[in-house]
């Protein structure tokens, strides 16, 4: 079968000599899914925009892009517009900004239809509704009249897919189609994509940084680094037999939701800037297998057996010795604090939340604001953290985990319930005690750029908490802290913008540690970082905890990261805790249907398992926290509720479940009337979804 799309030696150069793409070649056939994997700045998105001819005009593109044998590069606009949206469609990452805000979704879909098909307005509108129905949008005829901002993220992405398949394309390019979405929604969207592919029989180019997403979707995978493919081959080969150290490191550095605890394999250093690439292999500076020859010349992408290509001079050797990332990359040894051997009941409690409630008034109107409802952001949650322990608070966006964290950090009396930090009740603090207590309670933020004042040098940033608490001589302490987090003492004079994301996050950690706190609140500390950087920061956090005897409250949406870092986990849904317990218990024997769905939705970087796995897909979107369902909040989407008898359901509708310790389990409780433990992520043969 002849390929639909053939890309040959594609290069893209931006003004200033920035080589974003440096020679990419690939082919996609009908019905085939090609995964392009790479970290930010690897050139993977630019490649696809170049194929579509959508790059800014000042970009210089060379090479060849052939669709059905016809060259697209240099084609004039009149012919190109007949290809775009017809033969090749594209699905973009952020579905909010990808729709024009001032037109209805239906209009934009109908427009896509009418550009390429000679149909009337009414017929196009009807087709738009059919497309929305096809991608699983409920009440499509009504929803077609909605504007983009009235759709949730998942629905927008569905609509985006509907638009992309409106003209039966031969090729779909998906640029990070699920990155902006929550994991249960991601699972839905990937399902829709599969449906769309079956419907159109199109080839798919799937661009992502998430090795889990690709594992389940792709037939072949291309790994990109610094604007070039470094390895390419069938999906199983890439995942099970990587032959390039970068791919090996990447696979080894991903925290896995089914993986063992313990240190991750980090890749040291940062990807090179496209402005000054090293002369040799661009990965050489970070590569543990580097030899002198690596730095002399950039290795070309050469075929090694069958359909695979690798750009590494030592690939034969890797193949011969059958090396893996774990063999090649040094794994740090992380010591555990002595306190971790003390039984939980005997340790002191550092944080205790009791029935915490935080409601916001929902206001309407621009001039005279009036209250039209109440947002139940946090609606009665309780948990505690003991010395030397990490509790993870996980949940999807809108579940109330950030509000919980803010309530703790503010150290103010809560609306209802109690917050007790290190034995001190936040409602009984005076100004002085509150300030003193802040020494022991510090925070690390999610976005390492926004968390550091761009106008202050790093040494001032780290010294800020010290000075606020009356320390005069801060220089020595700042140097010590910089070294503690793995930076150099001389970095203090530079400004935050001179550091990479991972380094900035280390600065944020240093600042949080300056006052030697006992409890550290981590607000999604690694979610903004690339995979290869993430592992290093996770290891650092784990190491610091052991060395300094810290306790962590770790807020995250990534369950795989949580598994590695946390001792206990609390799963939140719509302002309530659904399940709470030790990580091992909750991950291996989840009892709440929501936890089960959440865990089953996480893609694993393992093609074999992804192919055989059955997902528990949730219906629809998160209900509005301003109007939560009666009784059990999860019942509207609960797969178990759907299977219950009418009689059994009344209990779910009428009675709100509380977290109840499960029988025969130590530290494990679930807020479900019909809690039942099942396994969803182990790779057992008899996978069944209850």
């Amino acid at each position: 079968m002849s390929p639909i799309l053939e890309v040959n030696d594609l290069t893209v150069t931006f003004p200033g000599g920035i080589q974003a793409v440096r020679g990419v070649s690939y082919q996609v056939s009908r019905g085939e899914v090609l995964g392009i994997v790479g970290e930010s700045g690897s050139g993977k998105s630019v490649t696809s925009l170049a194929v579509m001819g959508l790059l800014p005009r000042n970009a210089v593109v060379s090479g060849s892009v052939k669709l059905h044998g016809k060259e697209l590069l240099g084609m004039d606009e009149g012919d190109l517009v007949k290809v775009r949206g017809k033969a090749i469609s594209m699905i973009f990452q952020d579905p909010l900004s990808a729709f024009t805000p001032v037109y209805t979704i239906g209009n934009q879909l109908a427009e896509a239809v009418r550009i390429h098909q000679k149909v009337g307005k009414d017929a196009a509108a009807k087709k738009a509704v059919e497309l929305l129905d096809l991608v699983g949008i409920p009440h499509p005829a009504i929803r077609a009249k909605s504007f983009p901002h009235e759709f949730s993220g998942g629905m927008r992405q569905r609509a985006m897919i509907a638009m992309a398949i409106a003209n039966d394309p031969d090729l779909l390019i998906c640029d990070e189609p699920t990155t902006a979405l929550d994991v249960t929604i991601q699972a839905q969207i990937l399902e829709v994509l599969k449906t769309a592919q079956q419907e159109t029989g199109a080839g798919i180019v799937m661009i992502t940084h998430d090795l889990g997403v690709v594992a389940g979707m792709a037939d072949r995978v291309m790994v990109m680094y610094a604007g070039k493919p470094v390895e390419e081959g069938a999906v199983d080969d890439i995942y099970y037999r990587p032959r390039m150290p970068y791919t090996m490191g990447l696979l080894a550095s991903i925290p896995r939701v089914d993986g063992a605890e313990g240190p991750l394999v980090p890749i040291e250093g940062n990807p090179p800037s496209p402005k000054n690439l090293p002369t040799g292999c661009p990965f050489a500076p970070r590569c543990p297998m580097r030899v002198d020859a690596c730095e002399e010349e950039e290795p070309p992408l050469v075929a090694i057996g069958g359909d695979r290509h690798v750009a590494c001079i030592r690939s034969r050797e890797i193949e011969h010795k059958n090396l893996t990332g774990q063999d090649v990359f040094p794994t740090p040894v992380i010591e555990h604090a002595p306190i971790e051997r003390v039984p939980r009941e005997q340790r002191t409690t550092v944080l205790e939340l009791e029935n915490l409630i935080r409601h916001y008034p929902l206001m309407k109107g621009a001039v005279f604001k009036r209250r039209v409802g109440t947002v139940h952001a946090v609606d009665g949650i309780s948990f505690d953290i003991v010395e030397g322990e990490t509790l993870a608070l996980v949940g999807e966006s809108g579940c109330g985990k950030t509000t919980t964290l803010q309530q703790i950090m503010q150290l103010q009396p809560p609306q209802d319930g109690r917050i007790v930090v290190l034995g001190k009740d936040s409602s009984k603090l005076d100004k002085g005690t509150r300030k003193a207590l802040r020494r022991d309670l510090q925070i690390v933020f999610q976005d390492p750029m926004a968390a550091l004042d761009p106008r202050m040098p790093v040494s001032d940033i780290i010294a800020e908490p010290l000075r606020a608490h009356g320390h005069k001589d801060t220089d020595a302490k700042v140097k010590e802290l910089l070294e503690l987090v793995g930076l150099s003492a001389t970095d203090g004079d530079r400004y935050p913008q001179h550091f990479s994301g991972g380094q900035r996050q280390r600065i944020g950690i240093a600042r949080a540690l300056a006052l030697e706190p006992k409890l550290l609140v981590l607000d999604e500390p690694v979610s903004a970082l690339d995979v290869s950087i993430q592992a290093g920061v996770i290891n650092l956090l784990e190491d610091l905890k052991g060395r300094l005897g810290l306790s962590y409250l770790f807020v995250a949406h990534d369950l795989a990261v949580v598994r590695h870092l946390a001792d206990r986990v609390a799963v939140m849904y719509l302002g309530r805790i659904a399940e709470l317990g030790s990580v091992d218990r909750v991950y291996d024997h989840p009892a709440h249907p929501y936890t089960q769905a959440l865990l089953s939705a996480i893609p694993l970087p393992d093609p074999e398992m992804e192919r055989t796995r059955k997902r528990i897909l949730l219906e629809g979107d998160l209900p509005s926290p301003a109007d939560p369902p009666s009784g059990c909040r999860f019942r509207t989407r609960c797969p178990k509720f759907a299977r219950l008898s009418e009689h059994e359901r009344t209990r779910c509708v009428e009675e709100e479940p509380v977290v109840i310790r499960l029988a025969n389990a130590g530290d494990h409780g679930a807020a479900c009337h019909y809690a039942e433990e099942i396994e969803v992520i182990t790779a057992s043969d008899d996978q069944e979804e209850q």
Partner: protein
Amino acid sequence: MGRYLLRRLAMNVVLVAIAASLAYMLAATTMNPRASYEGRQPPVPVEVIDRTLDNYNLNDKTPVLERYVRWASGVVTGDFGSKWNGGSVGEEMGRRIGVSLRLLFIGTIVGFALGVALGAYSAVRQYKLSDRVIGVGSFVVMAIPVFVMATMLAIATYNLNRGLGFTLIEYTGEYNPNVTGFWPLLFNRLNHLILPTISLSLGAIAFYSRIQRNMMLDVLGQDFVRTAMAKGLRRRTALFRHALRTALIPSATYFAFAFGTMFVGATFTEKIFAWHGMGAWLVDSIQQNDVNSVAAVALFTAACILIAAFISDLLVAALDPRVRVS
């Protein structure tokens, strides 16, 4: 949405009332109509002056609040009080209001439409010669105050007419009273409109073109324009169908703000081209210590600006569904 706009309208009426009242108070306390009667030859007796001023509600011996109450209760019933010499402010306003509104209306429409068009064109042709010419042009125009612009235009026209030997473009007054007949009069009026319109709208054109260009450039870089092209629209079509309307929203919000500037500009053009409008009246009545006339102009201005603000709200709501729903 309708209720929201109604509330907004009510709010604006309150603001007009407050603004006009404040303006009256200011005028009544700073101006001295008595001066117009004192120092006359032969001297007018103080009692006569007091009586006259009392009649006109202009006597500074009466407490301001008392004068204000009398003025305000008049205004509510449509009586705007007396001019300093006893003439009716309401009648004078009736004569002048149309003159000003015509100028303001045409100036605003021309300024907005041309400015937005030029700005959009300039953005689409970014860095090309035409973009640069428009950019430099609007920059220079924005540095020229209306009164300099109007005077320059008047001088130029004077010299042009002299050079031609006949009056091609009129530069004083609103129309020539000697012209009769419908078509000749209309033509004559239009001819008289040319210079005031140019001097009034040039500044607005420059202002809106800069805003619109910047907004367009902001929008051009956004994902939805890329999506529109990925659907198979030509760049030009994508820009006009998807970028222009979105980029119009911020320009529409500036509408109200720019109207105040427009009113001040109109004051100068009216004075310089000898039109008898509200702006010219403001200047004259301040020089004549004519408190009630000043208050009337202030009321008119506040009302105009808030109507412009209201139209601006309507425009934004019409353009932007995100505002409409809330």
